[in-house]
């Protein structure tokens, strides 16, 4: 057992290092945008530009990335919408509270990458076809795609690489798009919603109504966010000395909570794509032994915050079995979007939909100063109205 003094809060970790890294422009690698625009000039495809207003953030090797603020077409996540819909709801709620115009499309398919990585019952042109179809659907509305899932995001970055460098595949996909009556469109940037949250974190903090200064947080960065096409992820010299991705951690800092480090920070959560469905011993062992237990023992956090569907699902759902086996688990898990929403006063059930989560989260809500019993009672009233037919759906107007 470790005492409180052994926990390594983020601030102490950073200020302890006497060095600061200065990135030199001369070492910046080639910017893939050159190739993107070259192909557009050659008539190979249309590059959908990031709409203004946008915020510029820094990526791993210093390249600036454009993050749109609004006019976003929300590319939803299967696992979020299917199993933890509070995650998607929170993302939309944040957009609404910040008065940003967005579209929640029905003309959207899954990226299908979960299946691809799980079963390989697909191929590169098919995966690219699915991606391009979704991008074209966004382009047709004039709104810019914002990707909800970490795997969709990483997978689409890979598709972009393949489409840029393999002319044969690009032409094959273009032909398929023609058959669908769709143009071949590549967005100027592939943007993950957590990058958007990062870009607007100060606006979120400005609207914060709940005090998070007594909360200890461990951050789990999603593999597919920063390990696929590694140069294209957000890094910030003020966060981890620019040595680890800043996404999520920067938000936590902006909300005034304490980020605590732990020694398996870079480890995968163990989702495994097919493992979580059909080889489950791997997933639940990994999630509990390599991640949750280590976090608990080294950092004792009040909550684990992550920014991907699979990670939230894996880390949250695996803890039941862990507890049954006497492992040191029991830390609630949620997304950065839900956390930010709670900071801004969102209802834990109407907006964050925490009742879909598995690991006990009520002590966390108490620490946030939320009367969860009252909130649950309110939500029960909503359910009553829905059951009785008085109302068909809970609406945005209802949730505030």
């Amino acid at each position: 057992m470790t005492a409180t003094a052994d926990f390594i809060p983020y601030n102490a970790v950073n200020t302890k290092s006497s060095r600061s890294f200065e990135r030199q422009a001369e070492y910046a690698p080639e910017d893939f945008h050159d190739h993107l625009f070259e192909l557009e000039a050659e008539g190979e495809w249309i590059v959908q530009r990031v709409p203004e207003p946008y915020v510029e953030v820094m990526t791993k090797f210093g390249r600036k990335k454009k993050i749109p603020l609004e006019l976003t077409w929300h590319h939803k996540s299967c696992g979020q919408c299917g199993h933890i819909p509070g995650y998607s709801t929170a993302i939309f709620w944040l957009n609404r509270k910040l008065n940003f115009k967005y579209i929640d499309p029905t003309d959207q398919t899954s990226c299908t990458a979960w299946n691809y990585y799980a079963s390989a019952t697909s191929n590169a042109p098919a995966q690219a076809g699915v991606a391009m179809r979704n991008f074209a659907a966004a382009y047709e509305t004039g709104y810019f795609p914002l990707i909800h899932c970490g795997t969709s995001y990483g997978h689409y970055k890979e598709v972009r690489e393949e489409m840029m460098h393999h002319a044969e595949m690009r032409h094959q996909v273009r032909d398929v798009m023609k058959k669908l009556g769709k143009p071949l469109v590549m967005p100027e940037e592939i943007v993950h919603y957590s990058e958007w949250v990062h870009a607007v974190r100060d606006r979120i903090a400005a609207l914060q109504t709940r005090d998070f200064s007594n909360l200890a947080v461990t951050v789990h960065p999603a593999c597919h966010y920063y390990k696929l096409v590694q140069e294209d992820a957000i890094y910030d010299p003020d966060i981890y000395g620019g040595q680890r991705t800043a996404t999520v951690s920067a938000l936590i800092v902006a909300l005034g909570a304490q980020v605590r480090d732990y020694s398996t920070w870079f480890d995968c959560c163990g989702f495994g794509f097919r493992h979580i469905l059909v080889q489950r011993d791997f997933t639940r062992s990994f999630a509990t032994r390599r991640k949750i237990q280590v976090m608990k023992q080294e950092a004792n956090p009040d909550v684990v915050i992550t920014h991907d569907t699979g990670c939230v699902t894996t880390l949250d759902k695996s803890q039941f079995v862990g507890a049954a086996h006497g492992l040191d688990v029991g830390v609630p898990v949620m997304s950065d979007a839900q956390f930010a929403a709670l900071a801004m006063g969102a209802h834990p059930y109407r907006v964050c939909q925490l009742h879909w989560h598995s690991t006990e989260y009520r002590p966390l809500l108490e620490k946030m100063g939320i009367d969860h019993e009252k909130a649950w009672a309110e939500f029960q009233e909503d359910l009553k109205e829905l059951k009785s037919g008085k109302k068909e759906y809970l609406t945005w107007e209802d949730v505030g």
Partner: protein
Amino acid sequence: MTSDTTLIIGGGPAGLEAARLIGDLGQKAILVEKRDALGGIPIAEHYAALTHGFRSAEEAMNELIAAARANPTVDIRLSTEVVECSGAAGDFRVKLAKAGNGAGETVNVGAIVVATGFQHFDPGRETQMYGYYEYDDVITLADAEKMLKENKFVTPSKDMPPERVCFIQCVGSRDRQIGNEYCSKVCCGISSKQAIEIRQQVPGAKVFIFYIDMRMYGYWENEIYWPAQEKYHVQYVKGIITEIIRKGDRLLVRGEDTTMGRPMEVPMDVVVLAVGMEPSKGTKDVAKILGVKQNKYNFIDVPHDALDPTATSAPGIFVAGAAAGPKDLDDTMSMAGAAAMKAAALVTKKARAMA
């Protein structure tokens, strides 16, 4: 106007040796050094012992410096940079200025030796997660040299001698992502030398070296590698570390023990990154000013390599030492001799032709 003087740019081991040799021939040399002291990297970065031979770096450099200074025909200019160059072999006009100050004087030289050397790779650009800018206990070879020279090798965050130290080889070299695909040649030898020094200075410390290959050319094998293992019990593990992260009050390093074929994570007090060589700012600046070709990695390009290791793309301009790529001290001293010889011969030939 044809000149009988050779310009030597850089006052590290290569430049000093070239200057001394030209002076020994009774010829004129101007040696310019950007810093305010001679001795190059070994002095500026407080090297302890030289690889191999274990001679004190400071003592060896002082010897070279004294030899260069002893020659009356060698004109040494400190805090001076080359800012402009025109002309051709036998007749170059080079403008020198006080470092940082544009205004200067123009000198006429017949041959130029570029000896502007290297700089160490900055670990902030590393592909793997080494946390050099997060943890003070992650250090580079240069940081280690400094501590070893003062005979005070400690865990920086605790200011106490470490119990467990490891080296990680190939940092910033042999990496396609970073773009430095080459091998920096000397780091295996230097790390092993430092490992021996640590074992000598801190006998209670366990020292590990995590490597991809151990590059122990020639006599390094029997003079450094075997003694490191056999006499000093340095542990060599084939498998490079990928992550360094704090656990408790130590650093956890994660790699694969490829011999045993399994992932491994072990705690360390100090981690030394064996950072590779890159062209120094001086090398890059001077290459452009002199108009000599640089290679893919921005070192001075040597067109004929094996048979003519000191040639550059411009006749009359020669290169010596790490400005041409990763070099060990033997290479550097040999190149300095060859470059000095070629410069002197060129200048002599031109003088005869004029007569």
